[in-house]
């Protein structure tokens, strides 16, 4: 009896422990609920059963006006044939949710600062940051200001209908595997307003560059004059987006860099505050971290310079690459009303980049200065209630942010104070307020929805007028042979010098913005005489032609220079040549800078340097996968840049407060007597340009020889690590890492280095002739967010090798080739 009792108690204890682990998991050990994870029918492995789309499926979708058919082609792209546009958006919502529900929820939660409700307390720092940046606050304001009858608003609601119709069919087995690993449940419903949050997330990625903070910190160390020279308003190499008539080469506007000056003591206080705020986890990484890999390209060619006699358009927006991709490909058809193909952000109700029967469009980021920070004076830093404005105290508006756990319990609160400018951030004993165009009410979706139906370049440009943020170079071409580009978005008009390059004085309204630039003042060009248009994030205006401030410290012009030279050299352009251009390996940066290393090495007479110089001298400046010089050049550049800008290091052992663009390094290289060559850390020794370059090259050569052995195949550029395309939440088993791609620093396909994950997120080429539209495209990844699906990464290898898929665009169900139907989804009212 006693033994039986003991055994029973033992069984009870074991049962209880196992039930707890199965039902609740062990969160402290990072173990999710094991039952719902390991269960063969409904657990993670069930993802395999839903990896393929069903051959045919019928589902109800409340709100549909008529039956809607969705044909998935053999690339997993839904072609939606609907009776009206809102039904098309409903069907799109259903299709996107079926493939990408977890991604949609994750992106919404990242923008709204509610990740803790999905991932627990570990996401609290990210959530706090999102709320302090006012992302959710701004999204709420935008939603409240929307006209509920606007096309964008109606599209969002219709899209939500589709998402929720899919959500209603979700079972434990079809629940994405990520939820099972996180021990969370999918959100109960998708609210139409969540689409606005997604756009705020994109604004954060593309329009939140804390350049002012970096410059402020730099000026506090080296003085304003030197900071202005290192982070200049205008790029010294001009190949602007808005072409200059008659110009057939970049304009050089070099100057001599002033020596480092005395610290600007007036900036010490804002610099101290800026130092903490700048290093936010959510913000876009600086070019120091990404190697310019966030740079995007687009170009369009007029019929006079193409082989077919039609217009050609190419685009490859570079973003953070992820699995699943940031993009979802779709085709929406409503007879006599809509026929648009392209990509959308999962969660946005319409096509963002793509083409219809008559017009094609794509974007690059314009950048520029669309945000300012203001140093505020408050009554009490420990418990601020008021801020001083024009000599009087104004109340700070507190907004209490509440953070909840997966189970809904409140795990933290945070009070964010708002001035009339926007949210504030308190760091290092100071309060900075943040004024950002992305916070203003807007309805970008009205523009996107209307643009999908445009029939000409002019019509498309008019349709996009409601667009506000993030500022984009919107390139468009039509079947009439027109090409045009215009920067859309808002640029603030500032008082005094008109520039917003430093942290501003918050104590006076005289620091505030006074309006926004009208659209007529934006960078733009239509059918330029040169017959082509190129944008690659370069400074849009040549200041010698249009001396208007819309930003400073522009990205390096290497990609723009290379694209322009390739386009100038070819007046019979073809789509396949455009495809090759998208992965062109030549770096103008290397072409202009490498010779300085070679000359410095040759002057030294050192034998090691002779070998290194020989490698660089014989290099054609192409980052081909088997090229050996790029590895040496990049290692030498890293060392040379670090030692040149030592004056920007505030504390020994810490990284510099900011790193000037490579083109400024080139500007310094042109002056062998510049005081910037002296490394102040070496005490009495005075370094020279050639000495610094030679030392950097020798150190790089020795270091690489030690790691890779003698120069040979081990030095191949392909061995530097390649690009990583990681799962959305970096689940190691679902990542695809170290992909050898033809890319390099300063090339048209810039790389972000061995640890990077930025690159061409959607390569697209469209040919528009009078007779037809033809398109090719690809993105890294696949349509499905299910890691067990063949469609999770089925495009990755073709993307890696620079190939494009030919896009199928049947205008009707009847025209759809039966052999290419992968799956049929019938949605019924």
């Amino acid at each position, binding site marked *: 009896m006693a033994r039986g009792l003991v*055994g029973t108690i033992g069984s009870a204890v074991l*049962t209880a422990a*196992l039930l707890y682990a199965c039902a609740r998991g062990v969160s402290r050990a*990072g173990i999710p609920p094991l039952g719902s994870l390991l*269960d*063969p029918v409904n657990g993670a492995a069930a993802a395999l059963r839903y990896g*393929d789309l069903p051959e045919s499926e019928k589902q109800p979708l409340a709100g549909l006006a008529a039956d809607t058919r969705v044909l998935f082609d053999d690339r997993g792209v839904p072609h939606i044939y609907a009776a009206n546009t809102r039904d098309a958006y409903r069907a799109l919502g259903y299709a996107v949710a079926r493939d990408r529900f977890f991604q949609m929820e994750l992106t919404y939660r990242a923008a709204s600062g509610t990740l803790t409700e999905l991932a627990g307390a570990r996401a609290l720092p990210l959530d706090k940051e999102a709320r302090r940046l006012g992302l959710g606050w701004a999204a709420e304001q935008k939603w409240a200001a929307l006209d509920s009858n606007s096309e964008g608003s109606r599209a969002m609601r219709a899209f939500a209908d589709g998402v929720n119709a899919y959500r209603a069919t979700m079972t434990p087995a079809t629940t994405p595997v990520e939820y099972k*690993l996180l021990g969370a449940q999918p959100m109960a419903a998708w609210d139409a307003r969540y689409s606005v949050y997604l756009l705020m997330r994109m604004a954060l990625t593309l329009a939140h560059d804390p350049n002012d903070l970096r410059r402020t910190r730099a000026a506090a160390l080296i003085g304003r004059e030197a900071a202005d020279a290192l982070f200049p308003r205008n790029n010294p190499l001009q190949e602007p987006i808005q072409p200059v008539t008659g110009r057939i080469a970049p304009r050089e506007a070099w100057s001599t860099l002033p020596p480092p000056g005395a610290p600007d003591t007036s900036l010490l206080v804002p610099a101290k505050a800026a130092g903490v705020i700048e290093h936010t986890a959510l913000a876009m990484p600086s070019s120091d971290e990404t190697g310019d890999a966030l740079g995007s390209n687009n170009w369009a060619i007029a019929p006079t310079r193409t082989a077919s006699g039609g217009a050609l358009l190419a685009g490859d927006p570079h973003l953070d690459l992820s699995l699943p991709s940031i993009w979802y490909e779709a085709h929406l058809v409503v007879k006599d009303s809509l026929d648009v193909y392209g990509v959308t952000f999962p969660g946005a109700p319409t096509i963002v980049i793509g083409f219809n029967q008559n017009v094609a469009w794509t974007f690059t980021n314009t950048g520029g200065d669309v945000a300012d920070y203001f140093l505020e004076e408050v009554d009490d830093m420990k418990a601020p209630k008021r801020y001083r404005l024009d000599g009087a105290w104004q109340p700070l508006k507190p907004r209490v942010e509440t953070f909840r756990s997966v189970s809904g319990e409140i795990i933290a609160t945070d009070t964010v104070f708002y001035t009339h400018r926007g949210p504030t951030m308190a760091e290092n004993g100071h309060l900075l307020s943040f004024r950002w165009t992305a916070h203003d009410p807007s309805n970008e979706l009205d523009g996107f929805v209307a643009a999908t139906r445009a029939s000409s370049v002019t019509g498309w440009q008019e349709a996009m007028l409601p667009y506000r943020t993030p500022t984009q170079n919107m390139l468009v071409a039509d079947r009439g042979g027109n090409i045009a580009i215009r920067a859309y978005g808002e640029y603030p008009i500032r008082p005094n010098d008109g520039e917003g390059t430093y942290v501003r004085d918050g104590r006076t309204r005289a620091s505030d913005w006074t309006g926004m630039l009208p659209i007529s003042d934006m960078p733009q060009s239509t059918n330029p005489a040169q017959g082509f248009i190129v944008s690659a994030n370069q400074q849009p205006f040549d200041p010698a032609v249009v001396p208007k401030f819309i930003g400073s410290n522009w990205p390096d012009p290497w990609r723009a220079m290379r694209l322009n030279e390739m386009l100038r050299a070819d007046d019979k352009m073809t789509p396949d040549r455009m495809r090759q251009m998208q992965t062109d390996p030549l770096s103008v940066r290397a072409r202009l800078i490498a010779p300085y290393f070679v000359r410095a090495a040759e002057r030294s007479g050192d034998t090691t340097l002779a070998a290194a110089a020989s490698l660089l001298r014989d290099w054609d400046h192409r980052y081909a996968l088997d090229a050996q010089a790029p590895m040496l050049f990049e290692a030498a550049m890293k060392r040379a840049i670090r030692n040149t800008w030592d004056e920007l290091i505030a504390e020994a052992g810490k990284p510099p407060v900011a790193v000037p663009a490579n083109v400024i390094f080139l500007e310094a290289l042109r002056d062998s007597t510049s005081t910037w060559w002296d490394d102040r850390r070496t005490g009495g020794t005075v370094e020279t340009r050639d000495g610094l370059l030679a030392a950097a090259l020798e150190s790089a050569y020795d270091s690489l020889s030690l790691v890779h052995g003698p120069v040979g195949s081990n030095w191949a550029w392909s061995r530097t690590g390649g690009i990583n395309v990681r799962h959305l939440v970096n689940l190691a088993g*679902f990542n695809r890492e170290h992909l050898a791609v033809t890319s390099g620093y300063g090339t048209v396909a810039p790389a972000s280095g061995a640890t990077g994950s930025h690159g061409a997120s959607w390569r697209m080429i469209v040919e528009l002739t009078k007779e037809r539209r033809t398109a090719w495209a690809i993105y890294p990844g696949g349509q499905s967010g299910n890691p067990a699906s063949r469609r999770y990464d089925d495009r990755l290898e073709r993307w890696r090798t620079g190939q494009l898929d030919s896009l199928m665009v049947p205008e009707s169900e009847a025209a759809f080739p039966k052999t290419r139907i992968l799956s049929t989804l019938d949605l019924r009212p």
Partner: protein
Amino acid sequence: MFFVTAVILFLAAEFVIGWWALPVVGLILGVIGARRTGVALQIGGAALIAWGLLFGWVATHGDLPAFMTSLALSMKLQPGILITAVAALPVLLAGATAGLGSGIRNLIRPEKSAASSQAAGLGA
């Protein structure tokens, strides 16, 4: 027959209540089979067979070993540990609940099942 019935019950219950089939069916079968020798081990083994069959069925839909390897890496585990956990869970959970069921029954009616309770695997 008891063993085969147990496997079938686990299979059927999996489709209705998912992983809860392990404790629920395990408990019920433990009570029913309390007089059987080594009932907990038998039921744990039946649950293992049922899960094995179900995973075999899942494997017909795709590359299960590759997916489980990816899953393990995503959990920062060696794949072998995850496979071991997948195999151990049905044995332990169904076996423990069976032992609990048979133990409770033997405690309630000791005169009828004293002998079998001592030999009831985890429950004895």
